[in-house]
Every structure is written in structure tokens, then in C-alpha cells.
């Protein structure tokens, strides 16, 4: 018989439910208060998921991973930095899915600096910005995004130096 396919994330949810069961056994009132608190958090952020869905669909429609790969592999100079930043921001899916492609780029002569910049910008996720704006406000979100993009270039430049010095 085939084993049911349970992902790690499902195990996480099961573990949390088990924690609730333990809490309920220790004090039912506490578990009820926890559920009420969760419900309040959910109500506060529920509409953001609709926004995330629409933004993710928009990105999927207008930007394909193939176009990112094509531009990152063929551009040069300042344009490649810009492509590296944009590519990191708009790349989707788990990070490990991008490792083989980045390794191929490296073999094709792309420097570690650009790869580091690409990886750092994976942290900037435009479809998820509504969540940060909701909790921290537009001013904080805008400053954080700009600082992170600048830091990605700083990291890229550091790695270029490392590579030139033969440290990598």
C-alpha cells in the first residue's frame, strides 16, 4: 500500500495541533484563549492573502523564470547588476530550485558577486509587501526594501573582491 504523502509543512501543523491538545489537557480555558487569539490574528490579516494571491498571479503572468534566466545569463556590466537584482526579486519557488541554474551561470563565466546579489534579493518579495506594510507601515517597508537592495550590491561587490583575491 502506498504511503500517504505528508509534507514537512503538514507535520508542522500537526505538531501545533498536538501542542493545542496538550494545552487543552492542562487547562481547557487556556486553549480556548489561544484559539480566540489566533482567530483575532487571522481576522486582522485575512484580506492580505487575497492581495498576495492577486500579486503572485500578476507576477506569474508578466514574468517567466525563462526570461529571468535568459537576461541574467547574457547581460553585462551595470545592466547585469540590475538584472541580478531584478532577477532575485522576481524569481519564484524554493531557493534550492535555483542552485543548478546559478551553478551553470558560474560555469558560464558569471561572477560570484552577481550570484550573491541574486540570492540576497530573493529576500525582497513584492507580492508579500502588503504583509510588511500592514505590520510596519509604508515608510518602514520602503526604507527596508531600498536598504536591502543596496546591501545586496554591497555583498555582490565584496564577493567580486573575494573572487579577484582568489579567496573563493
Amino acid at each position: 500500500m502506498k504511503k500517504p504523502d505528508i509534507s514537512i509543512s503538514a507535520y508542522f501543523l500537526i505538531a501545533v495541533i498536538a501542542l493545542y491538545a496538550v494545552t487543552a489537557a492542562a487547562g481547557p480555558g487556556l486553549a480556548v484563549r489561544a484559539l480566540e487569539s489566533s482567530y483575532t490574528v487571522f481576522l486582522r490579516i485575512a484580506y492580505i492573502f487575497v492581495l498576495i494571491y492577486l500579486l503572485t498571479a500578476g507576477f506569474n503572468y508578466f514574468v517567466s523564470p525563462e526570461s529571468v534566466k535568459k537576461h541574467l545569463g547574457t547581460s553585462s556590466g551595470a545592466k547585469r547588476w540590475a538584472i541580478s537584482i531584478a532577477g532575485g526579486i522576481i524569481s519564484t519557488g524554493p531557493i534550492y530550485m535555483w542552485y543548478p541554474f546559478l551553478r551553470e551561470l558560474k560555469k558560464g563565466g558569471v561572477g560570484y558577486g552577481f550570484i550573491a546579489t541574486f540570492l540576497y534579493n530573493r529576500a525582497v518579495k513584492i507580492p508579500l509587501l502588503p504583509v510588511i506594510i500592514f505590520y510596519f507601515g509604508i515608510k518602514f517597508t520602503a526604507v527596508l526594501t531600498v536598504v536591502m537592495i543596496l546591501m545586496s550590491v554591497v555583498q555582490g561587490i565584496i564577493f567580486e573582491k573575494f573572487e579577484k583575491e582568489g579567496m573563493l
Partner: protein
Amino acid sequence: MNSSDRERLKDSLARAGRSLYNSLPVLAGTILLIGLANAVVPKSVYGRIFTKFAILDTLTGAFAGSILAGNPITSYILSGEFLSQGVSLYAVTAFMVAWVTVGVVQYPAESMMLGKRFSTLRNISSFVLAIITAIITVSVVGML
């Protein structure tokens, strides 16, 4: 909109739906965990972990963010809740940035694919940059 565009739109909507659907167990678990923490953990505990010394709190936040992993949205929700518990913005920002830039969990795969030295230096520098990013961001926001 021609039929090819319609197909692409349908596919984009379906992929976005699948992506959100696949994240549901983690998101539901995170929200339930936050509720549990709100009910069970007294607010004074956060005060004991985070000292109100900006540099130390930022380090603690970056360290915690580095060892935890998962969807970025989880870190945003957790960070927002930490902030409402009185944790400093420096610590919360460092936590959020380290969560998404330092990959302790992905380190083995990254080092196999891109080289051990590159991955080690990238993760260490990302940890340091998370602290610098937090300090610059909070300082600039404070000035605006």
C-alpha cells in the same frame, strides 16, 4: 486578449492558487502558534530575551532569524506580532532580514552546488548585513 493570453492568465491564477494552497499548513500553524504564545507566554518573557540594548537585541534577533527557516511571510507575521509584544524594532528587523537572507537549513545544498567557501562566506556576510540593514533602516525611518 487572445486564447494564448487567456491560457497564460488561467495558468498564472492556478499557479498562484497552488502556491498559496501549499503554504496553508505553515500559515495556519504559524497563526495557531502565535495564538498559543499570546495565551501561554507572559509578555515579561520577551522582556527577558530582549534587553532593550539596541545592539544586543539586534544580535539576538539576527541569530534567531538565522536558525529559523521557512516562508518569508511567516517571518513577517511573527515579526509583526513580536513588535506588538514590545520587542524593539532593531531586533525585529534583524530577525526578519536574517530569516530571509541567511540559509542555515539550505546551507548543505547551497555549498554542494555553489561551493563550500562561497556558501559559508555568503551566510556569514548575510548575518552581518542583517544587523547593518536593521540599524540603517530603523535609524533612517526614525529620521523621516
